[in-house]
């Protein structure tokens, strides 16, 4: 009886233990951690790629200041590029050059070159879909130039750890509002959901002299000197799985407002009273945009209402905006600016990209249908470019920074 019980117990327990086992076990110091991948197109007829990987050197990271000095390697990572067919081939081939078992468990970002993105994003997504190692939260960015060069030159200045650098860089849009946080998850959402299209962060590096002017810069176009070489500004617009265009800072801001992705970020306009000056507010979106849809109309009519709160934070002119009538002017100017930017962007999306990057279809039009079949039959993708989309913004100036009125300069 006793023996029977014990052997039964073992019979139950043993299969559990053979499900997984020591062969899945990897010591931390036997693995090489790839934190960033870059994918470039390769010259020639073959459909191959140049895959670049950045691999962390943990001992250099922990050594910290003691390891100091310039150059990529002493920053706690090294970069390898290889010419191969896919991300997985690359990992396999790189294994020949890196002694430790390479893993993508800690991969934070994948950069795709613009020409590949314009071809199609699907091959990349297929890899991520299947791989158990890559997370769905991996950040994706499109680089207009050479990805390999971008990764090599764009070394962190503030952070000692490159992983940290990528993590914080990709989260920056929470308080900038002029790009987007595109991960595999958002990409898949945009691709798989009928009635919306996907957008991807733009990243690039180029030296732009401070003598140049650019009010609507994209990544790599900002007149800037010093700091890290690359920047993340603007958005790449996709139609299905293909990239079809790029939006600069001003358009990306309007895009985030229309998508409801805008949280709270600075926003500047021309001073309505003294137009030569600039005026800065901190703009906050109160909830998602309210969209009313009229299917009866031909073409389909959409009314998009944005509710926004503004905090005046900087003014160069001499107008006292704390006064009621000036505040009205300020609110009017903000409304006009936002509405005109939004209108321009919508026109561009309808005529140039033909791509509903605002998620209007998924968020509003879809709700007009009771069954999925009806919604699919309606074919929003075809109807979007003709739709009549009106935007109105409701802006309230609520606060004037830390001062109740501007400083009075004594005569």
């Amino acid at each position, binding site marked *: 009886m006793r023996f029977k019980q014990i052997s039964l117990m073992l019979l139950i327990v043993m299969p*559990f233990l053979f499900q*997984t086992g020591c062969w899945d076990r990897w010591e931390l110091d036997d693995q090489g951690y790839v934190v960033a991948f870059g994918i470039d197109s390769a010259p020639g007829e073959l459909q191959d790629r140049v895959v670049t990987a950045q691999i962390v050197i943990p001992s250099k990271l922990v050594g910290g200041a003691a390891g100091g000095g310039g150059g990529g390697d002493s920053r706690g990572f090294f970069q390898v590029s290889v010419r191969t067919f896919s991300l997985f081939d690359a990992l396999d081939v790189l294994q020949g050059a890196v002694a430790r078992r390479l893993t993508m468990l800690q991969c934070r970002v994948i950069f795709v070159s613009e020409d590949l993105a314009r071809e199609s994003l699907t091959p990349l997504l297929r890899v991520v879909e299947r791989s158990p190692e890559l997370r769905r939260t991996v950040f994706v960015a499109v680089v207009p130039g050479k990805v390999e060069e971008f990764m090599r030159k764009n070394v962190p200045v503030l952070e000692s750890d490159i*992983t940290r650098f990528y993590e914080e860089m990709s989260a920056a849009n929470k308080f900038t509002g002029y790009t987007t946080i595109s991960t595999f998850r958002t990409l898949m959402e945009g691709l798989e959901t009928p009635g919306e299209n996907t957008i991807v962060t733009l990243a690039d590096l180029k030296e732009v002299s401070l003598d140049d002017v650019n009010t609507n810069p994209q990544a790599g176009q900002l007149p800037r000197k010093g700091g890290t070489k690359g920047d993340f500004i603007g958005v790449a617009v996709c139609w299905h799985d293909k990239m079809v265009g790029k939006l600069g800072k001003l358009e990306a801001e309007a895009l985030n407002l229309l998508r409801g992705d805008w949280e709270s970020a600075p926003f500047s306009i021309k001073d309505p009273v003294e137009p030569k000056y600039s005026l800065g507010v901190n703009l906050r979106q109160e909830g998602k945009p309210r969209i009313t849809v009229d299917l009866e109309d031909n073409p389909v009519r959409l009314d998009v209402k944005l509710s926004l709160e503004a905090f005046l934070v900087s003014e160069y002119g001499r107008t006292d905006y704390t006064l009621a009538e000036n505040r009205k002017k300020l609110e009017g100017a903000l409304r006009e600016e936002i509405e005109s930017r939004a209108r321009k962007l919508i026109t561009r999306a309808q005529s140039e990209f033909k791509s509903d990057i605002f998620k209007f279809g998924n968020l509003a039009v879809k709700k007009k249908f009771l069954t999925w079949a009806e919604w699919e039959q309606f074919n929003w993708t075809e109807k979007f470019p003709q739709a009549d989309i009106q935007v109105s913004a409701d802006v309230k100036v609520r606060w004037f920074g830390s001062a109740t009125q501007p400083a009075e300069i004594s005569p």
Partner: protein
Amino acid sequence: MILSNLQSYRPKDPNMLVKERLVSANQVEEKRNFIEIVEGVLAGSTALFIDGANAALLVETKGWEHRSVDRPLVENVVRGPQEGFNELLLSNIALVRSRLRTENLVSEMFKVGKLSKADVAVLYLRDVANPAVIEEVRKRLNALLEVDYIPDTGMLEQFIEDHPTSPMPQMLSTERPDRVAAYLTEGHVAILMSSTPFALIAPATFWALLHAAEDSYVRWPYGALMRAVRMASFLIAMFLPALYIAIVNYHSAMIPPDLLFAIAAARERVPFPAVVEVIIMEVSFELIREAGIRIPSIIGTTIGIVGALILGQAAVQANLITPLVIIISALTGLGSFAIPNYNLSFQVRLLRFLYIGFASFGGFYAMAVLMVIHLAVLSGMKSFGVPILSPASPNRPSKDTVYRAPIWKQETRPNLVRPLKKRRQPHISRSWDPKSIEARVNRND
């Protein structure tokens, strides 16, 4: 006054007169041989020679030396009574009785052991304790007559507990009379024994093993906090090293990158796999602990030096151990020290190694499998008829498990042993407090 009695009773032998009427000791012998008298005096008796008598009286006046009532050595509290049991059974019973001055407190005497014939007292409250439990204790104690030698409740426990092969303790041993009294009022049975300061309380549940006397003596938020800390320390002591192994070996994606690279960098210089590292540290910690108990107290301070210097610092400098593993084993050690019951902390120490083994073999998955088996075994165990995990499983609402409700809200006794009386304080104990009454009325109960 005594002499006045002599009038009526006059035996011929003056010795008989003295022996039966005057000496108040209960053991008096007549001795006619001087050698016997000398031996008797050397053994502690008193010899009484009477003029005109032909024999001496050897009066039993032996007095055993014993420890006086002292502070408890194991179960210390900051707030609360500071006296513990000693080795004298009668004074131990008196300590309990001084706290429960009721005629319903019964102490039944038993003798266990053929050679030791140790006195065992079973204490319970006649009007509260469940008769079935009392009968069960009687039955188990009566079975021990044929055993040679049972000197301590630690051995007694092993003879009468339900599952003698399980690492889980099933009786609560305590040296605090206030704790014994508290459990008696809840309907439990206490077993006290001569020559040992540790009383046994039956039945005991897992939760009772995590309680300390002080929990009830401090105000309830503090008591609740102490209990929560203790529960956390139990979990840390049981699972932390195994969790570390599982995460580092199987689930490295869970670690934030900064920490991951720091561990990886430290591990680069260490020649062993992570599990060997952890086992080295755990074994050394067990060594320190065992040595600390066995070491003569004069050279006891060396333990600290050896432990702190050799294991803490030198092992890291020699690249044998990563600093994180030192932190983990230190936390684990602290956790197991915070477990108030000595037996329970033994159980934790044993099972921890089992969990480490399973974690190194199959990560979280194997740990989860072991945990399911562990819980299944525990929920099947009983202590004197009471499920050991109750009132959590089987689930009965209780105000005194990990969370301790305010004392004035604990109106009924815990239902574990089905006490004869359910209510232990009136519906509204704080009857002078209008808020308290109002709250009760609003709850409609």
